[in-house]
């Protein structure tokens, strides 16, 4: 994360940084929250609650893995939330109304995500429009487009008992009556592992970080900056597409017009997990952990009996806290 700085200050590397820096703090926060909620609410300790938290986390984690890449380039992707709903609506529509096999609907869902990601990337990298503006526009476009394509109606992907309902078992299988196994977490962890590798050990990853820390230097050293910039957004789109499948598998009806706000949970998770708000630094595992902080709060706060408004206030305070850690860390590094 702080590789560039630690080259000069290797000897001063603190115990905290050895343990993984902000990720370690976030992990402690997760453990702390889990213990706190478990003590405060006996129902929070139940196995089914864990399954629910995982169920409701998959789509945010997947979005967060993807959006980590544009964030590290110093940009952002605001289109992933409404995009997710749009891709899911289109895939589900083809399955329900045009007799597409479920796998084909899923493929269209993911490819649609990649397409929008490429459009975002091209507008940002080639046309040089600020990422905030580009993705805000595609956010609006996908929101409207999803409604238009399906005719404004909510779409239900096949339920578990219907033909084609097998895809729901990707994320959760029933091993006995009332016993669900949340296997989705395995796929999520595999994807986190792969994308961590991509970010840290491949050209795509190194150049993504390069664009975020010093775009001009990357360009001068002969990197095809535009190409790799587009790739970062394509990855974000790809994972928004995967998130769309996770969302469709967990929830029953996908409603047009929704999805705005999902992206903030994914981006918030990434920032909590140590992705620098100004680009150039971040990890995929950090984003994963950051999202779990948000998901724990979303489930835990209602379980301890906190009313709606307080839930929002506390989630906001936690986000400010995470950004403050980032700012303080940067200041200390600058000294």
């Amino acid at each position, binding site marked *: 994360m702080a590789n560039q700085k630690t080259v000069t200050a290797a000897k001063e590397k603190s115990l905290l940084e050895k343990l993984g820096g902000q990720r370690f703090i976030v992990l402690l926060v997760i453990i702390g929250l889990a213990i706190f909620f478990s003590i405060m*609410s006996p*129902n929070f300790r*139940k196995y*089914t*609650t864990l*399954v*629910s938290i995982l*169920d*409701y986390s998959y789509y945010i984690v997947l979005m967060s893995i993807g959006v980590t890449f544009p964030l590290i380039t110093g940009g952002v992707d605001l289109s992933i939330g409404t995009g997710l709903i749009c891709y899911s609506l289109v895939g589900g529509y083809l399955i329900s109304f045009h007799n597409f096999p479920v796998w084909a609907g899923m493929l269209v869902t993911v490819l649609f995500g990649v397409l929008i990601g490429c459009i975002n990337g091209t507008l940002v990298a080639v046309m040089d429009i600020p990422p905030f503006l580009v993705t805000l526009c595609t956010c609006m476009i996908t*929101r409207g487009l999803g*409604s238009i394509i399906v005719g*404004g*109606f*909510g779409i*239900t992907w096949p*339920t578990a008992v219907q033909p084609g309902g097998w895809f729901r078992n990707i994320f959760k299988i029933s091993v006995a*009556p*009332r016993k*669900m196994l949340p296997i989705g977490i395995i796929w999520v962890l595999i994807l986190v592992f792969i994308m961590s590798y991509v970010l840290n050990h491949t050209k795509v990853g190194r150049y993504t970080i390069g664009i975020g820390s010093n775009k001009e230097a990357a360009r001068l050293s002969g990197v095809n900056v535009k190409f790799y910039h587009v790739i970062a957004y394509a990855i974000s789109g790809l994972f928004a597409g995967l998130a769309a499948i996770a969302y469709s598998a*967990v*929830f*029953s*009806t996908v*409603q*047009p*017009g*929704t999805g*705005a*706000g999902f992206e903030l949970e994914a981006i918030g998770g990434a920032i909590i997990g140590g992705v620098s708000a100004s680009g150039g630094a971040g990890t995929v595992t950090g984003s994963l952990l950051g999202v779990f902080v948000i998901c724990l709060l*979303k*489930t835990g706060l*209602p*379980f301890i009996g906190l*009313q*709606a*408004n307080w*839930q*929002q206030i506390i*989630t906001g305070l936690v986000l400010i806290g995470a950004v403050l850690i980032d700012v303080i860390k940067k200041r200390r590094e600058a000294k």
Partner: protein
Amino acid sequence: MNKKLLAVALGATVAATALGSVAFAEEAITANGDYTFEIIVKSYQSSYWQAAVKGIDSEKEALGVTANSNGPNAESDIADQVQMLNDAINKKPDGIGLAACDQEAVLDALQAAKDAGIPVVLFDSGVPNAPEGSVYSTIATDNYGAGATAAENLYAALKDKIAAAEAPVRIGEVNQEATSESITSRGLGFIDKFTELATADGHTVAVTGNEYYVNNCKEAGDEAAANIIIEVAVPAQTTVELCATEASNILNKEDVIGIFGSNQVAAEGILTANGNLNVLGSDPETTVLAAGFDAGATIKAAIADGTMYGAVTQSPLAMGIKTVDVLTQIANGEEVTDLPTDGYWYNAENMDSEEIAPNLYD
């Protein structure tokens, strides 16, 4: 309240003196001009509103008038809707149809519409404090009555279990928010009716949870002394996911025997929560009974297979049609009154019947 009584009295007088004239008027509506109406729904979020828009679109074609439908992305986008309402007023249409997301936020705009001489017809949700003379007619499900209908049916099914219970029992209620007239009325209608029926049978009831509902129900009771606890949950945002989390929290409690979700999002949230908990069913002795509201493919399937005990449905299609009718009548210069529409209880037995099936949209 007095105004409502007056309206009822007036309505009764009109009905007594001119029996059948309402029916006649409904059949014989014609537009005496090239009218343009602006109609704003609560959101395009649920198929419910799409059914209303369908009604609006079919009736505007039948009458040959122009009706532009619009609506915010989510029912919680209150400011967006107020903006749309102000834009609609600036277009100076012959009338405005409005399903208000928030009863207080639209008050200034309603005054502006009145000052501009634009008649407003409210549908789905009423605005109790609307400036006098701004609203010409309210076309809405009697939401309070519809919530009470859910309570009557759920109580009837749970009555014996409550009577036999040795320890206090819990009834859950998930409302997606605490701001709109329709949701709050349904929630309060359920609470008040359930309390009334239980009290009549000698039970004591306490209402806990969300402050709005606890403070506005008829009798909140004392939790320590009650043998029936009605727990009301409202999520931080109107998403299925957060409704599901709130529902999980209630359904996890050992003493819960019934739960009510007061609209499509809340009812689907309950079903999503049940996906992991697997506690719902139609047998009060062994399972928790859930009552929903509205329809949609998911709720219909859950009721058909017995996961959900039953639900209350409205007729959004008819509401959309009536809104265009009433706007046209006002533009024609005809007198109009409030039109309450009914909520119907449906379950696995009657959902395919002629009276119910047309109201159950996907």
